[in-house]
């Protein structure tokens, strides 16, 4: 039995004008760390709210731990942990007060499942008596995670837990999630950060309410339909414009230090690139074949969708 299951879920807002979730179906296996990857407005929060039973879908069925989200909501609410998008703890209560409040709400005590949150809590323990509102972003996330775990939930729903948090705290947060997996808690996380996707067992790439791809990160990368090249030169903006205008180039976009580009089918890889470099008199030109990242895959899928939409 999967930990979480969605079948043909639809959700619209504004009398149907906004299609937030558009025929989404997927499963999360028990003990899996599953990532829902996509930008703002992709539908992640709506999906989370449907799964945590606080929102009813227009159509479709969802289950958590085998229980139906529409009918058995109270039973589901007793055994899941939820960290919604905005920071959802009480700003004017201290760290300790927040934790004991949520422990009591969940009919447990801090001591009972302390081993579960120990690693995380030790980091914020020195601030026990500080009001939650005065913590840094990273600390707040850790506290929120503790409060969501305090009752040893079967499934943990984390909606954009690392948004707005500094780079180091983000890394630490994901380490904590990895350790939680060992406790056999199923975790469903959403994030707009593509680099975090590779840390999940499986991911679903979601955009505009549609799932563009669902698989293990490695598989998604392996399924990239064509060769991906990286190129750079001294005047990178000019190179970008030049390459884009070239008929041999299929797509070309900026990607940090390098440009990432794909060539049309009949082209001859690196040789073609070198020819182009010569043609455009690119100074300090460098190019290589590279393995795509999740972000490359996301962009590719978006481009394919736009193309098929335009046809």
């Amino acid at each position: 039995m999967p930990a979480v299951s969605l079948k043909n879920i639809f959700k619209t807002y504004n009398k149907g004008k906004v299609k937030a979730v558009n025929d989404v179906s997927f499963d999360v296996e028990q003990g899996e760390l599953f990532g829902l990857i996509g930008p703002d407005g992709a539908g992640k929060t709506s999906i989370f709210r449907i799964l945590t039973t606080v929102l009813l879908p227009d159509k479709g069925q969802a289950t958590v731990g085998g229980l139906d989200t529409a009918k058995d909501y109270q039973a589901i609410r007793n055994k899941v942990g939820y960290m919604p998008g905005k920071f959802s703890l009480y700003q004017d209560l201290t760290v300790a007060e927040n934790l004991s409040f949520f422990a009591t709400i969940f009919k447990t005590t801090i001591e009972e499942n302390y081993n579960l949150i120990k690693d995380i809590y030790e980091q914020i323990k020195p601030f026990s008596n500080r009001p939650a509102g005065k913590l840094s972003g990273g600390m707040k996330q850790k506290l929120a995670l503790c409060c969501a775990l305090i009752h040893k939930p079967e499934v943990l729903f984390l909606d954009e837990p690392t948004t707005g948090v500094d780079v180091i705290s983000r890394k630490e947060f994901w380490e904590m999630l990895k350790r939680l997996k060992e406790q056999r808690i199923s975790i469903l996380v959403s994030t707009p950060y593509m680099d975090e996707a590779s840390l999940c067992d499986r991911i679903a790439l979601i955009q505009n309410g549609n799932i563009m791809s669902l698989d293990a990160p490695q598989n998604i990368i392996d399924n990239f339909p064509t060769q991906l090249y990286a190129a750079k030169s001294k005047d990178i903006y000019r190179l970008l414009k030049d390459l884009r205008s070239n008929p041999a180039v299929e797509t070309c976009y900026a990607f940090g230090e390098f440009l990432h580009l794909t060539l049309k089918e009949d082209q001859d890889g690196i040789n073609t690139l070198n020819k182009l470099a010569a043609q455009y008199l690119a100074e300090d030109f460098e190019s290589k074949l590279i393995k795509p990242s999740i972000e490359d895959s996301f962009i590719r899928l978006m481009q394919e969708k736009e193309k098929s939409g335009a046809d």
Partner: protein
Amino acid sequence: MELINIMDNKAIICNNLTKKFGAFKAVDQITFDVNQGEIFGFLGANGAGKTTAMRMLCGLSYPSSGKATVAGYDVYRQQGKIKKCIGYMSQKFSLYENLTVLENIEFYGGVYGLSRSEIRTRGEEMVSKLGLTNEAKKLVGELPLGWKQKLAFSVAILHRPKIVFLDEPTGGVDPLTRRQFWDLIYEAAANGITVFVTTHYMDEAEYCNRISVMVDGRIEALDSPANLRKNFNTHSMDEVFYQLARRAQRTGD
């Protein structure tokens, strides 16, 4: 990209710029300068002092000490002149959600003193370039996030400012739109507008000519991305930032 490198013509000059709140030094003696037409990345964790520094440069707050000029104007005595020749856009707010695209353009055009015909011409140009011709009369609140951000940037440079300040402009936006956004930034820079941008996407740091990293109110690194990667002996800006941020004592309180 041609960079003009004469001291007098620098877009921004900062010398020991400091901002104190009581005993707390939000910005601690930062010194740097930005060339005209440069894309300058201003990086740092939350609470490192980026926003405070930017507000001083935009003429929104008085420094506690130190000197700075923006577009040649002094940040203490010529704040009004500064505001006239800069543009500003942030993630949190850019356009009025319950005004249409055209109304927003008219408003900002009016505020920056553009003539009716200028507003009309540039507005039409902008709308068609962004592909928003069919949406021009829609309320901005009804547009998807990516389009909003691209529109907001275009409106910020409607009056052809010398410098445009961008505060985390691409947060939460999908990767494709983010790149389209940076296309717009590249184009603006190529047209001579200096771009001062803060971001926490490390790959976006790579698009900049030079970047500075703020830690605890001080600038801990200032160089081109390539040099920084070399100096920190790593392949990614992520690592550079990570190593610098590790040293930070303040954590965004």
